[in-house]
Every structure is written in C-alpha cells, then in structure tokens.
C-alpha cells in the first residue's frame, strides 16, 4: 500500500533526480555527450532503484 511517507520519499527522490539531470544538461551543453548520458542514467537509477526496493522488498 502506498502511504504518505512513500509519497514524500518519492518526491524527495524526484528532486534529487531533477538536480542530477540539470548537471547532465550542463555537461551536454559543454559538449561531453557520453558523460551527460551517463549522468542521465544515474538520475534515472536514483528513482528506479529505490522505488523497486519499496515495491518488492520490505526493509
């Protein structure tokens, strides 16, 4: 069941992912395409992995 705590946690994760993506955008604009792509991947994992843990594992 999705509780209020989970919603707050997901909101925080989205903030971190957004902040990381902005670094990716900055890196992209500097011409480092591969570096930017990897930063975007990190931003995606920042949200996907904790959500997976929340849904499939109880810790």
């Amino acid at each position, binding site marked *: 069941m999705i509780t209020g705590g989970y919603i707050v946690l997901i909101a925080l994760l989205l903030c971190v992912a957004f902040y990381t993506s902005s670094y990716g955008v900055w890196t992209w604009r500097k011409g480092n395409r591969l570096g930017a792509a990897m*930063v975007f991947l990190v931003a995606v994992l920042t949200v996907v992995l904790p959500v997976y843990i929340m849904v499939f594992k109880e810790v």
Partner: protein
Amino acid sequence: MGKSTVLGNWEAVTIIINLICTKIFLNYPRLAVEAGGTAAWMFTAYISALALVGFTVIQALYKPFEGKDLLDIAELAAGSAGRIAVGLVIALGAGWGATAYMRVFSENMKLISLTTSPLSYVELFFVACLVGGAYFGLEALSRIHAFSVPIIATGFMLIMIGVVNYIDFGHLLPILGNGPREIFINGAPKVSVFFEILFLFLLAPSLRKHENLKAAGYWSLGLSILFLLISVLVFSSVFPYPSSLEGTVPIFHIARLIKLGRFFQRVESIFLLIWAAAALLYISVCFYFILWAFQKAFRLDYYKPLILPFAIIVMSISFIPTDFTEVMIYEVQVFRQWSWIAAFLLPALLLVLARLRKKKSARKGQAA
C-alpha cells in the same frame, strides 16, 4: 582527486591498511579457516606472499609512470575506451565494497546492539557518513584515517591480547589443515583478499614520487599482513576447528570471552566502537572512489553533484540481497575468488601495454 591534493605516506598507508584489514572484523578469520582448516595461518601467509610478489611486479612496472594513476595509464595503453573500461571496473569494485559492507555491517550492528531498529534506519547512519566523507574529499578522509587507524589498531590488539589465556596451540594441529592442495592451489585465488591494494594505484598522483608509492605499498601490505596473521592465529588457536566455522562475527566472539576480574567485563563494547569506526571509514573511502572513477572515466568536471544520487543507488542496491548470508556468499565465492584479476592482473597488463606504446612512440619520434 584534485591535482593539488598531496598525501603523506602515513595517510596513504592508513587508508590501505583500513581497506584491507576491515574484513578482519567481518569474515576474514572464518574465510581463512574455511580455506585452510587448522592451517589457516599458513593459508594467510601464502596469499600474503602472493600479494607481495604481485605488488613487487606492479611497482617495478610503474616506475616510468610516476605521478600517473591507473586511469591515466589505461588511457596511455588503450585510449579513451581503455580509460572508460578501467574506470567502470574500479567503480564496480569500489561499489561492491561499499554496498556489500554497508549491508553486512548494518545487519551485524542490528544483530548485536540495535536489535529492534529497522535495517533502513541503521543504514542511514552509514549513508550520512559516506555523503559527508565524499563531500569533504580525499584530504579530509586521509586525515581522519591518519588519526583513527592507530586507535582502531590499538583496540584490535587489546582484544587479541585479552584472550591470551584461551589460546591453545594444539588447535593448530594437524599442521597442514585441509591439505596442501586446498591451501596452495585452490586457495591461491583468495589473494583477492588484497584487492584493495588497487586503490593505492589511484593515489599515485597524490603521492607524487614513485619511491613514495613503493614505500606506502610495502608498509601498508606489511602491516596488513601482520594484522591478518594475528587475527587468524588467535582465532584458530582459541576456537577449535571445526567449531570455529560456526561464528557469524569471529572477532566479536573472541571479544566476548574477555573477562578481566569483576570490574572489567563486556569488553566487546570496545570491539563495537572500533568495528563501527573501521566500517564507516572503509565505506566512505570506497564511495569516494566510486565517484572519483566515474568522474574521471567520463571526464566530468565535478563529482559533488553525484554524491546524493550515488548514495541513494548504493543504499538501494544494498537492500537487494535477501539477507546478509547471501551477501557473504557473493563476497566469499565470487568477489574474493575473482577480484585478483582486477587488482593484480589488470594493472600489470595495462602497465606492460603502456610501456610498449611509449617505446613505440619514442621510436617513431627518433625515426622522424
């Protein structure tokens, strides 16, 4: 790490000692007993000798690359692809160290002292420390190591001396334990216990001179071998084989035996203190190297914006295994079986390739 970060030999030695020896508090004595039986000390001496030989070869090959770290050498040897591949290998190795040790130490901490706290709450302390460590950088981490590692080593030695009354060298017989084949052939890949020596080659630019790298390597290996040998000798002479295979946290079981009269009991509290300190330092350094390798491999300008996302990723991955027994199975049967390839074979190959390339370009220069 920044070009301006300069480390003294002592700082580098304490970082490497802590990286290699933290596993004493986790599972090393048990791993050695599993591999060597009553000859666990002989197994330790054997893999130590292999590690010393490996380091001697690598440091000799390193001589013309003074002030260059392993990623610089990978770039010299195999271009950008080499740099990225080696950076990912280092990030994965450090990542395994950070995630596995975070999970296992948190589980053990929960088992021993924070019995009713949820695992995620215990891990938050570790995450806070690794975020702080990465934020302040290598210089701060090295200074904390220079101050804390002697205290941790003293606490460890006090525990070892405290159980002197329980030592029975009869437990070390038969002298060849599980047999020469188990120790010298099947045990050889366990030289991966010294995987963390790899991180010394990342500190090379901060150590500046090749002589410093060499001295720091030999001192850190020598002292680590001493601590590993002491822990295994005490553990296998206090607990008879095969009952020595039963304990989950070997040094904790040793510490619980200590009773110094009516007024000094429960000495394992010292153990908890040094154990937590060693684990926090280990995880913080591994986490810093994940960020450093990622930054350098992909030529990013800063690593600080990646601290929080990587901390979240490391914490999340540490929750994936079902329990800490599963982590220990991966640690002993996979990581400590194969990581010698990344720690010893990979640097040696890269150095040989980089030397060949250097010679080739020198010849071309002469011909022109």
